[in-house]
């Protein structure tokens, strides 16, 4: 892992709290919630191992991986946006946030398509324990993505108005978006891949 020993002009000095304390209260609380869902999922997996294994096969690994790549790309755009906003290049930052948002919309579309296919094949929420968790957890995550799109829209508004443009607001929104990405990575590993 590369390490940086001196700060560059676009880097923050050490011990800077990105965003503000408020967003971190939320992020840590939400991470705790998701951790709880994952643990409960595992409890039921221990109890119903064969049902879980059997059902997991019906998930589309490629779609899941694709969605992961889409969300990672969106996080890259948002992270870049924060950096460019700090240097004052607001037009570029706006473009980057829009691209991040487009990726978010793409994720939503892919996910909807994936759900549609699964439901059409008869795998619905009440089908068995596994699908109960699958739809609920990805559902809650999707809800977070949709809220994230709202947050990105707010950041766009923030960046466009010269009178607004608070750095902490842009950072806070970015932190939320990265959290959504982070949670998906664990979901992808837990629901799709791990057995």
């Amino acid at each position, binding site marked *: 892992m590369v390490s940086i020993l001196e700060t560059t002009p676009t880097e923050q000095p050490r011990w800077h709290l990105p965003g*503000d304390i408020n967003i971190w209260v939320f992020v840590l609380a939400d991470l705790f*919630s998701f951790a709880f869902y994952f643990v409960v999922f595992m409890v039921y997996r221990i109890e119903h191992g064969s049902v879980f294994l059997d059902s997991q096969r019906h998930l589309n690994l490629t779609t899941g991986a694709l969605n992961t790549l889409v969300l990672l790309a969106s996080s890259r755009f948002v992270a870049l946006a924060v950096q460019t906003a700090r240097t004052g290049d607001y037009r570029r930052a706006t473009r980057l946030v829009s691209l991040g948002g487009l990726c978010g919309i793409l994720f939503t579309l892919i996910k909807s398509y994936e759900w549609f296919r699964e439901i059409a094949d008869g795998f619905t*929420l*009440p089908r068995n324990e596994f699908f109960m968790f699958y739809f609920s957890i990805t559902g809650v995550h999707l809800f977070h993505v949709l809220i994230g799109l709202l947050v990105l829209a707010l950041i766009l508004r923030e960046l466009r108005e010269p009178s607004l443009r608070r750095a902490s607001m842009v950072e806070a929104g970015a932190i939320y978006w990265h959290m959504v990405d982070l949670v998906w990575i664990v979901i992808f590993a837990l629901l799709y891949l791990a057995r």
Partner: protein
Amino acid sequence: MTGATAALPARVSARDDQRSPKLDLWICWWVFPAFYTLFGLIFVVLTRVMPPPRPGVGVDQINSFFHAHGTTIKLGFALLMVFIGLASVTNGLVAFQMKRMSVKPIFTYAYIATLAVGAVPGALFAAFAFLAAVFRPDRDPHLVALLYDVGLLTFVGSLGCFTTNYLVLALAIALDKNKVFPMWMAYITFWQIATELLAAPVFVFQKGAFAWNGAISFYEGTVIFVVFLGCLIVLLRRAIQQQPMDELVQD
């Protein structure tokens, strides 16, 4: 601010200053912990609605549940009828603090309305259903089972009004320039919404994590609600302490 209310009465004498200046607010604040303690006592200890008995049981077991707890159910919910009105005081206190915010009082009206409606499925429906179930010992067991389902489905599944309620509160706090409540409370309130949504599946499942007694739909939801409530009570106390005595509050 649009249209301040008629001016608060000016201080009549120095003696008025020495009496507890915000007594009215503090009385209302104390209702909060008192009411919710009572609520906990009624729903947990007396009526056994929290944590709820299992949905996936047969008619016989449902009837024996009511038979075993009949007396305490009657006592608990009769008490609830007397004290449920106190919820309006707690809601009024929060609504009053919302009026102090820089946002228009629409949020306050919505907050009060959603809680007023939410109280019915959120507590009263379960109470009446259970009271009816234990009222006549010789009632048809299938009817008793029906009342069991009605009571518990409404109690755990009634999230619609509360979702809007939390949303309105979160929005008001987030948009408030007077900083009556800190920003993180807006986020915590919003976090509440996300967890409440996971109570929706209770209408589908009779067992498992998303049943009305499930680890996620009930237990996690309840724990997070208690955390939220704790934060609300503490922040209300802080808000009252910081409130200027002669502040004019919008209508």
